[in-house]
């Protein structure tokens, strides 16, 4: 318990340690962690979301969309960073590539399964009302699959924050992982304090995305949800038995 008290003292001092001047503040490291993560997540969303939604709209490419998810998970972040380091040297670009490699699969898989799973009768009704393909995507399929779409993005966000800190182990500095990777300077209390910050950061990012998800969910669905159990939060769709 003593360690936890020391860790919170470290957080209260914003990462300052007696006798070690010039260390970056925890605020600074947290913001940098968020910046690196946000870039990776944004690129992944731009690549993966339209692709997953488009494949789901066409009901095509299920094999690729679903198995991509498992391949992405099979790539250990540290291994991707290590191999990227060996080939190109470790910089922001390699880290962002590693983040995108890890974040794209869950977004594609969930977007595909979400849009693919929208009730066909509803899509037929929309078509009968004279909606074009694009209108169906925008006004029927996307609103109805907000929950799985966000499940994918939230999973990806968690992976990304996690991997951004792991990048410090591979020698990419500037993020909260620096403290965790440097027990010599920060002692265990500092490492623990930074770990608490990282965990809080990940939970906060997940919480923010959940709020955004609620705001974007059509009101009718929210009301309908109240009658059922809560929608499974993350990667629900991956239960789909495929091989």
């Amino acid at each position, binding site marked *: 318990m003593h360690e936890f008290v020391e860790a919170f003292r470290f957080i209260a001092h914003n990462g300052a340690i007696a006798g070690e001047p010039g260390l970056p503040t925890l605020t600074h490291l947290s913001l940098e962690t968020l910046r690196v993560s946000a870039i990776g997540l944004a690129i992944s969303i731009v690549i993966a979301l339209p692709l997953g939604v488009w494949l789901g709209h066409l009901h095509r490419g299920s094999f690729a969309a679903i198995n991509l998810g498992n391949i992405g998970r099979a790539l*250990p*972040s540290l*291994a991707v960073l290590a191999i990227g380091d060996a*080939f190109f040297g470790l910089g922001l670009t390699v880290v962002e590539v590693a983040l995108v490699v890890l974040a794209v699969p869950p977004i594609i898989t969930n977007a595909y399964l979400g849009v693919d799973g929208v009730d066909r009768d509803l899509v037929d009704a929309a078509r009968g009302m004279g909606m074009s393909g694009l209108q169906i995507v925008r006004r029927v399929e996307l609103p109805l699959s907000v929950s799985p779409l966000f499940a994918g993005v939230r999973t990806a966000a968690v992976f990304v924050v996690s991997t951004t*800190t792991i990048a410090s182990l591979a020698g990419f500095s500037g993020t909260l992982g620096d403290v965790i990777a440097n027990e010599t300077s920060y002692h265990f209390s500092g490492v623990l304090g930074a770990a608490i910050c*990282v965990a809080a950061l990940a939970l906060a990012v997940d919480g923010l995305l959940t709020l955004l998800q609620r705001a974007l969910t059509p009101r009718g669905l929210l009301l309908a949800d109240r009658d059922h*159990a809560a929608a499974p939060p993350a990667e*629900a769709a991956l239960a789909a038995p495929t*091989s």
Partner: protein
Amino acid sequence: MGLDSPALAEHVVAAAEPVIPNYGAQSSSCVVHNHLFCTDWVSHNWGPVLWPALRGHILLALVAVSIGFVISLGLALVAHRYGWLERPTMIVTTILYTIPSLALFELLVAPVGPNVYSAEIALVSYTLLILFRNILTGLRSVPDEVLDAAEGMGMSRRQALLRVELPLALPSIIAGLRIAVVTIIALATIVYTIYNEGLGVPIHTALGEGPFKTELIVAGGLAILLALVADALLVLVQRLLTPWTRARAA
């Protein structure tokens, strides 16, 4: 020309000193120059370095997934019977799943210590959400008519569970196991930060030595390969255990 020679001499001196000090004893020119991939280093170090790391990695993952599976199966069976348990279990396992691995390992070191127990507790906690959800989804997906038929045949609740519900839930359960196994194999590379085991160990060594490219590529590649092989094995297991799913698809 005269200006070039000191630079040249310096280059020769630099090349003569091993770049990778730890491997000095068996340094080939490839290792000394830290070329992209040195097969001789791999064959020399398979026995002393790579195989122990790989074996440790497999053990870490196997133990974590086994324990995680037993816990999740228990939780899912109880939640299947008593529906109100689903929500709290989901909330707890989701929070555990959301905490970044590096942070969770360190958070566990404070109460448990930097040992195999912290490593396994963290790894197990990452399997729970995946396995619990998939087992429960599988059990719930059994059609009511099938259960009615089982009851009509005189099966007790326990018999129906063992002989009807669990077999029908297998595809979903194995889908969950695939995700869990692959996730844990990936996460086990970070275990080295608190406990000296797994493929993270050679990756860490290599990062400290230059970085030494061959070791980075081999150790990272082994981790990826292990995950893919484990995934393929589980697909095979599913095919053997659930022949009816293929018959239906055909």
